[in-house]
């Protein structure tokens, strides 16, 4: 809603909206005073370590723990079967919103069979982590190895072992979107182009691994879990239900979180086991995943193979697109968010910026004896954007059109909203045209073309890439986790309170992992209330302290949590003005709050400071009429009502150089124009975009979980699994177009993931632009030197 009153608040002289304020918490962490989970040690803390399956698929015949139990410092050894006895049962990672989806029951630790290399099998708890690891080495397990299913291509073949016989086959989920008249469009098309793609499996590699410190108090039967996590209320619900502790007795605290990126929104069996150990022992149990076990136990993501075809007219209009996706997930569908959202998003967003109606997209999701996959930053988008933008470039190339001109012709116009993307997902308030034009100027496209042409004469192959996108952010309740049966809130909430001092406490269900959520929420509250930022303390990451919410994922913190903060703060402002009106015997309508004081609206004459409102409101209530009881607090919740997602849009540009002798790529420069609606803190938004881009570039260029035919991970260390480091990464220039969402008064959309979504696609487009003289195109990610040289036919 275009509320002119709200807009003036955001744009007024006292507004904190749109200001690049630095983060207060950064001052703490920059001094080495961060408090991450492993930095917290409670009295009598003991430490858990795990024996994990060395096989991708094997039956457990016998486990001998006797020697381990006798080792120094060992206080508990627990097998998967013993943990199962202490749990309410296995979980099943399906959601009813995915029709026909199936998954097998999964226990926190393997009970009679391990289904991936790295699945936890036995837990040892000891006085120190090293002692627990010593004891793990003394556990003897008799295994019977079973043939693993390692390849998605053959997972549904008749001769392939079925992971979970009760499911009948290895199919997790299949879905087809079919809009318009696709077959007719291809049959009558001027030009049809086909391509095949593959996207390697990768993983989050948050610098702080998964970490948990569980503390069960048998006296009060309270369970406190400190855990490096984005979604405290979900952890509360899942752990409570799995371990049979009443939810209201479970407190989940997310201290400083050392990176998460969607990794830390899932249920991990080792964390559940360590929590069960705390209940069993009645003392704190800490589990910190080490890096090697992270590679085989953190969720993986993005193992997809896609065939695509596009139909275009000679005039340069997209007439139809069809994609067929095959995704290899892990041994189980992740609980409770499933392992099929990624494929579902690929279907939703491919070719999302373009105005054509004939679209068919199918996915087939199959189980493999590998680490379970699930949501990871920019779920599905890197795949869909890479495919869509590559096909658009091929079409432009075939027609002899400039890729920019082709996009100008085909993107949805900025006045076409509300509308739907080709997949049928509703989109609103987008700005493809404005973003494209801004990008062309930002990157000096014409200048790059000239430079590229000049260098080609010298045998230097540089490529220019352009990739537009839509990005699903801030999901609403429709067809989503909660409605699908998962204990995950799509709403988020804020409670804001005026303290006696005149300071304000703002508690929020969304969480911060360094993005600056606390700063942004403070800016919103300060603006709505009319008080200085340093009068506000934002509290997040503690289920005992904050109102119930979904937490931070899917780029929802600012768009959903921020609107709750705005609405709650507006309510509190109204109450303060009402009380001030009574005290001052003035009409509340004639009063305003500016700079932490109640003032006369318009003139700005100070009438009473908020500290006086706070003092009287808490300590001197006798000064108020008996029939007036101010609460000086407000709670508001917010959820989407009209849309399933707030889709955002933007466009990337990339300039790369390909060494055609070695296959090495040099990323020379990267540009982004992003529309995340109203910008609360431009600098923080820019840094989300930049960091997101580099995470995407890692997947596009280096990161790959390599498995052999026995489904053994071959490169599960940071020495072998390559992540982007400073030397290889480009400078990234970021600009914005601001189209506030109509879903909220604040108008903010999500900003945290789109960099990751579009960066792989734009670099692929740029590399292929460079390789055009060779008639070659790279369609496999990561685009390693080997892939480039194979594409060039040099190896």
């Amino acid at each position, binding site marked *: 809603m275009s509320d002119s009153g709200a807009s003036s608040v955001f744009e007024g002289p006292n507004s904190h909206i749109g200001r690049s304020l*630095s*983060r207060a*918490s*950064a001052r703490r*962490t*920059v*001094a*080495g*005073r*961060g*408090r*991450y989970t*492993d*930095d917290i040690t409670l009295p009598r803390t003991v430490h858990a370590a795990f024996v994990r399956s060395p096989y991708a698929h094997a039956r457990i015949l016998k486990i001998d723990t006797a020697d381990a139990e006798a*080792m120094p410092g060992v206080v508990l050894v627990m097998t998967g079967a013993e943990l199962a006895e202490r749990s309410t049962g296995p979980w099943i990672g399906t959601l009813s919103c995915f029709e026909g989806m199936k998954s097998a029951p999964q226990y926190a630790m393997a009970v009679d069979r391990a289904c991936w290399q790295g699945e936890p099998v036995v837990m040892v708890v000891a006085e120190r982590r*090293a*002692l627990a690891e*010593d004891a793990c080495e003394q556990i003897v397990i008799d295994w019977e190895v079973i043939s693993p299913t390692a390849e998605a291509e053959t997972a549904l073949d008749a001769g392939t072992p079925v992971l979970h016989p009760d499911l009948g086959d290895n199919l997790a989920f299949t879905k087809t979107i079919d809009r318009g008249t696709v077959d007719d469009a291809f049959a009558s098309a001027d030009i049809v182009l086909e391509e095949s793609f593959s996207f390697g499996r990768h993983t*989050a*590699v*948050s*610098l*702080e*691994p998964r970490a948990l410190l569980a503390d069960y108090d048998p006296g009060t039967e309270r369970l406190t879990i400190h855990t490096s996590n984005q979604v405290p209320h979900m952890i509360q619900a899942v752990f409570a239900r799995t371990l049979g502790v009443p939810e209201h007795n479970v407190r989940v605290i997310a201290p*400083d*979180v*050392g*990176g*998460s*990126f969607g990794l830390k929104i899932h249920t991990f069996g080792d964390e559940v086991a360590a929590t069960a150990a705390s209940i069993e022992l009645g003392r704190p149990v800490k589990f*910190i995943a*080490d*890096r*090697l076990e992270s590679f085989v136990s953190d969720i993986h993501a993005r193992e997809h193979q896609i065939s695509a075809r596009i139909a275009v007219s000679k005039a340069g209009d997209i007439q139809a697109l069809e994609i067929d996706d095959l995704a290899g997930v892990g041994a189980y569908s992740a609980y409770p968010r499933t392992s099929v959202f990624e494929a579902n998003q690929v279907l939703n967003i491919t070719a999302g910026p373009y105005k054509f109606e004939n679209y068919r997209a199918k996915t087939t999701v199959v189980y493999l004896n590998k680490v379970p996959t699930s949501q990871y930053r920019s779920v599905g988008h890197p795949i869909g954007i890479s495919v869509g933008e590559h096909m658009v470039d091929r079409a432009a190339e075939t027609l002899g059109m400039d890729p920019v001109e082709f996009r100008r012709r085909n993107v949805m116009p900025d006045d076409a909203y509300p509308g739907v993307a080709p997949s049928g997902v509703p989109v609103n308030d987008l700005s493809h045209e404005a973003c494209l034009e801004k990008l062309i100027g930002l990157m000096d496209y014409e200048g790059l073309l000239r430079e590229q042409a000049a260098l080609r004469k010298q045998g230097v192959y540089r490529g220019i890439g352009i990739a537009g996108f839509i990005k699903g952010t801030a999901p609403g309740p429709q067809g989503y986790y909660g409605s699908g049966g998962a204990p995950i809130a799509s709403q988020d909430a804020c409670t804001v309170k005026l303290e006696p001092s005149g300071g304000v406490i703002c508690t929020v269900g969304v969480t911060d*992992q*360094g*993005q*600056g959520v606390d700063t942004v929420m403070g800016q919103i509250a300060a603006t709505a209330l009319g008080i200085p930022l340093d009068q506000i303390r934002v509290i997040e990451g503690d289920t005992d302290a904050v109102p119930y919410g979904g937490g931070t994922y899917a780029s929802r913190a600012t768009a959903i949590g921020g609107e709750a903060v705005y609405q709650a703060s507006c309510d509190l402002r109204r109450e303060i003005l009402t009380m001030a009106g009574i005290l001052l015997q003035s009409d509340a309508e004639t009063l305003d709050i500016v700079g932490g004081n109640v003032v006369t609206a318009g003139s700005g004459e100070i009438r009473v400071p908020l500290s006086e409102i706070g003092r009287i409101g808490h300590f001197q209530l006798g000064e108020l009429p008996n029939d007036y009881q101010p609460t000086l607090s407000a709670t508001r919740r917010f959820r989407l009502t009209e849309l399933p997602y707030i889709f955002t849009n933007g466009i990337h540009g990339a300039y790369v150089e390909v060494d055609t002798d070695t296959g090495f790529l040099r990323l020379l420069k990267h540009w982004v124009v992003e529309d995340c609606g109203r910008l609360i803190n431009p*600098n*923080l938004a820019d*840094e989300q975009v*930049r*960091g*997101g*881009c*580099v*995470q995407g570039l890692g997947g596009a260029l280096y990161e790959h979980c390599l498995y052999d035919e026995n489904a053994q991970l071959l490169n599960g*260390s*940071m*020495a072998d699994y390559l*992540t*982007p*480091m*400073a*030397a*290889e*990464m480009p*400078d*990234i220039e970021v600009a914005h177009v601001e189209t506030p969402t109509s879903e909220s008064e604040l108008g903010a959309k999500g900003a945290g993931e789109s*960099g990751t979504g579009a960066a792989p696609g734009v670099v692929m487009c740029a590399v292929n632009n460079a390789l055009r003289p060779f008639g070659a195109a790279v369609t496999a990610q990561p685009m390693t030197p080997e892939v480039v040289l194979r594409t060039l036919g040099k190896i």
Partner: protein
Amino acid sequence: MSDETKTITLTVNGESVTKLVDARTHLVDFLRGELGLTGSHLGCEHGICGACSVRLDGDVVRGCLMLAIQADGASIETVEGLTASGEVADLQENFVERDALQCGFCTPGMLITAAELLREAAPKTREEIREFLSGNYCRCTGYHAIVDAVETTLTQRLEKSS
């Protein structure tokens, strides 16, 4: 497993410390667990990520690739020490101003590495700064802002000294 222990004496952030440690204890585990200096972090424990970087007798080392007993007699500086001495106060301020840290887990190691570059007191290009920092992994920022903050600090220091 190991039952061996050794008493070591070393200087940590200017203070002498004597402790009995397991021979197999890594330097960073000793600093974090025994001394409560939790500013140094464990990211990979195999020498790649740089989150455990500390100074040993003036040189930057990986705290996960050294045993505590190897630091017997040495002088160790951690991010807490660099903060207390004010040596990197300008760099830290620029990190905050430029938002060159998000989750902050890599930051102590990044600061210690950058401090080494700054001590060279020589002009550097952005490429050279990137190269210098390329042994420290950051998953959040994409490095651009870190390079900005280091470049700004270097420029300010060179201007001040000229």
